[in-house]
């Protein structure tokens, strides 16, 4: 456990000093701030636009970091051979994979917290500069605590995507790993459509294939409550817990798979 924590700390320190990571978080905050300007052009929809754009920016930037940094965690170590020194220390390959995963998850959650704070700062400014009469047109209050539910589930989604990226990077090239992880993300968000494909096609075989894919792929649409919280629709604690629990089960499966594959791999 100590080795996992030390490796995770190393990943965290290395990634928070990475200029690309800084740039992405800065870009996300700028996007949130610019949404404020965009919102000035619309009447009554300003708070909705800011929330939509802010949550989308946090999710997209997090996704980008999870995929590209997640894949680099293993492939860069192997390609640059920095893993040789690391694995000669009293560290197992299991500890290596877990340390890398938790290090990036820690980085992502801190980045997400920074983006959430910036997001609420923009909304606070909007709230303070908007006349009480104008606020009546808003579907939900600017500083709606429900937004935190969306951020929490974005965090869960990023944990799942990071595990997926690491899983693919243990046996395929970086390019293929990016493509496969992105494919999982896309399919995961269209799970319901896959499940109900028999309603729109006449084929007898295709629905079986799409249903299999639906059950194998993670259900990321269950983690996407961005639209619901922006419109003030209820998001139950039970559904959040169920979605989180199934995602964590998926994360655990992917990590076990990653460890099994990586433990048998020759590091040429």
């Amino acid at each position, binding site marked *: 456990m*100590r*080795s996992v924590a*030390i490796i995770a*700390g*190393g990943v965290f*320190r*290395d990634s928070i*000093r*990475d200029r690309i990571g800084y740039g992405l978080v800065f870009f996300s905050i700028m996007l949130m701030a610019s949404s404020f300007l965009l919102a000035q052009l619309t009447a009554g929809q300003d708070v909705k636009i800011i929330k939509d754009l802010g949550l989308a920016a946090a999710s997209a930037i997090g996704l980008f970091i999870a995929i590209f940094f997640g894949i680099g965690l293993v492939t860069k170590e192997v390609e*640059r*051979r*920095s*893993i*040789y*020194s690391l*694995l*000669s*220390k*009293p*560290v*197992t390959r299991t500890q290596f994979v877990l340390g890398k995963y938790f290090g990036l998850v820690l980085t992502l959650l801190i980045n997400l917290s920074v983006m959430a704070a910036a997001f609420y700062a923009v909304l606070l400014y909007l709230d303070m500069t908007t006349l009480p009469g104008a606020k009546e047109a808003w579907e939900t209050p600017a500083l709606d605590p429900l937004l935190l539910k969306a951020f929490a589930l974005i965090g869960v989604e990023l944990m799942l995507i990071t595990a997926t990226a690491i899983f693919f990077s243990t046996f395929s090239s970086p390019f293929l790993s990016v493509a496969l992880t992105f494919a999982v993300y896309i399919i995961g968000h269209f799970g319901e459509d896959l499940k109900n494909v028999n309603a729109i096609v006449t084929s007898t075989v295709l629905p079986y294939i799409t249903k299999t894919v639906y059950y194998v792929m993670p259900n990321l649409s269950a983690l996407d409550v961005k639209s619901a919280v922006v419109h003030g629709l209820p998001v139950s604690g039970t559904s959040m817990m169920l979605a989180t629990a199934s995602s964590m089960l998926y994360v655990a499966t992917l990590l076990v798979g990653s460890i099994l594959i990586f433990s*048998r791999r*020759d*590091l*040429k």
Partner: protein
Amino acid sequence: MDAVKTEGLTKHYQVGFWRPRPYVALDGLNLTVSKGEVFGFLGPNGAGKTTTLKLLMQLIYPTSGHAEILGSPVGDVAVKRRLGYLPENPYFYDNLTAEELLVYFARMFGCSAKESRERASRLLDEVGIGAERRFQLRKFSKGMVQRVGIAQALINEPEIVFLDEPMSGLDPLGRREVRELILRLRDRGCTVFFSSHVLSDAEALCSRVAILAKGRLAAVGSLDELTAVGSRGWELVIAGVKGDVLTRLKPRITTTTPLGDGRFSLELPPSTIPEQLIPELVSSGARIVSLNPLRGTLEDVFVEQVRATGVDRFSTKVAS
């Protein structure tokens, strides 16, 4: 208990995309290294030296055979606590400083934060990294990274250290410092196993060497054993030769070189015993001017052994 022991250690790689064939990177290596030795693992590029070290570090898995370090199977976490390893052309995390990297590795051995900092500082002094220790590693030259690599290999005060081409990328001063460091390690009782194709390093440092060629062990022994007196024959200088004695003795002489004034230099192969040849020469009227052993250098042995290895490395069978 041996410091290192390998038995039939073999590694095949599959090469070729359409018709993959097994390529023999290492073929049945049997090797023992005693504790406290400075052991040179020599061979030309592509001989299998790095493959062997990767197998010992369990970075790759053997096709067959097995290896032990300090009496335990390779990969054992308890053994990893007692060894150090410098990979060939090491690379570390760009965004960490040399000091942070060493502290990071020291923590893996259970050192406290204070002890980790102290060890890092002492080792960076020892390998000649000064104020640069607070620079990010991305700003380091190849030689400086090599020095950091040597420092990280020693962070746990290992009982045995494996150095893969430790002099690579170092300037002459750096090479001398690393040689001195290896000798200090030996004096502390640390076993040093280092691979190199620079023979002068091995001659200066090693108590025993192994020569690997095309994945096979071509020779192993102490420098004295490998370059033993008379192992390459003798040089005999004679004068006053009469008659056809040289023609008669030709089958027992490698080369005959006239030196003028009736003197000849005779190169005798190791199979010719000078004590048997000399009476025959003297009885035919020749005078013995000098007799000197032809002592081979490590380079001679190396070139001879490497040239003698004519192995096809594309195996027709794959070990199970």
